[in-house]
């Protein structure tokens, strides 16, 4: 089915471990984004990408790494997870002219 999918949907890990959250979209949208959602903060932009091999930092990039070798995939890696990275992570995509973001179902990450 067309759309944007995230995996895993739920993940529990330990402090210091590396974790990768996957995001895949089938619309061939140019733009892709990673947000985190925490109580009291709404959604905050971590990283975004305007096209394959083009990425840039958002509001809260520290502790995260992204890559975009293919248009349809935009993985987010926590190289050494910390408890403060416990959150719900949303991937989104959009086309430049429209600007409207389409969100995945979210990945709930718990760091113990």
């Amino acid at each position, binding site marked *: 089915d067309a759309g944007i999918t995230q995996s895993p949907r739920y993940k529990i890990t330990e402090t210091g471990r590396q974790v990768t959250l996957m995001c895949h979209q089938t619309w061939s949208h140019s733009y892709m*984004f990673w947000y985190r959602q925490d109580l009291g903060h709404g959604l905050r932009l971590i990283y975004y990408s305007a096209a394959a091999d083009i990425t840039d930092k958002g*509001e809260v990039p520290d502790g995260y790494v992204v890559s975009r070798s293919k248009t349809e995939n935009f993985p987010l890696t926590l190289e050494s997870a910390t408890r403060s990275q416990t959150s719900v992570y949303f991937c989104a995509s959009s086309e*430049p002219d429209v*600007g*409207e*973001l389409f*969100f995945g179902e979210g990945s709930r990450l718990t760091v113990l």
Partner: protein
Amino acid sequence: ELKVEQNPLFLSMQEGKNYTIYCNYSTTSDRLYWYRQDPGKSLESLFVLLSNGAVKQEGRLMASLDTKARLSTLHITAAVHDLSATYFCAVDIEANKLIFGTGTLLAVQP
């Protein structure tokens, strides 16, 4: 520092009543979006406002944008329980990068 402020943060209202959620932002932008989020779910796009004076309506919800005042409103008419959710506004600061408000939790009571 860019700020996108919504108020109220929490709104409890009775069915049949009208109310307005406000979204103020601190930077120049002529693109603003409203999203709805049900508990434990993803965000669903409600309205795309792309110019000053834009007004969009869908059912009991109407959104407007005043770019000069840096203000958007989401008006609820004759609320029903199904509208209970969290509503977010988001401002496009450049190249589709959206900065979100903290959200308004709406609870419609019978």
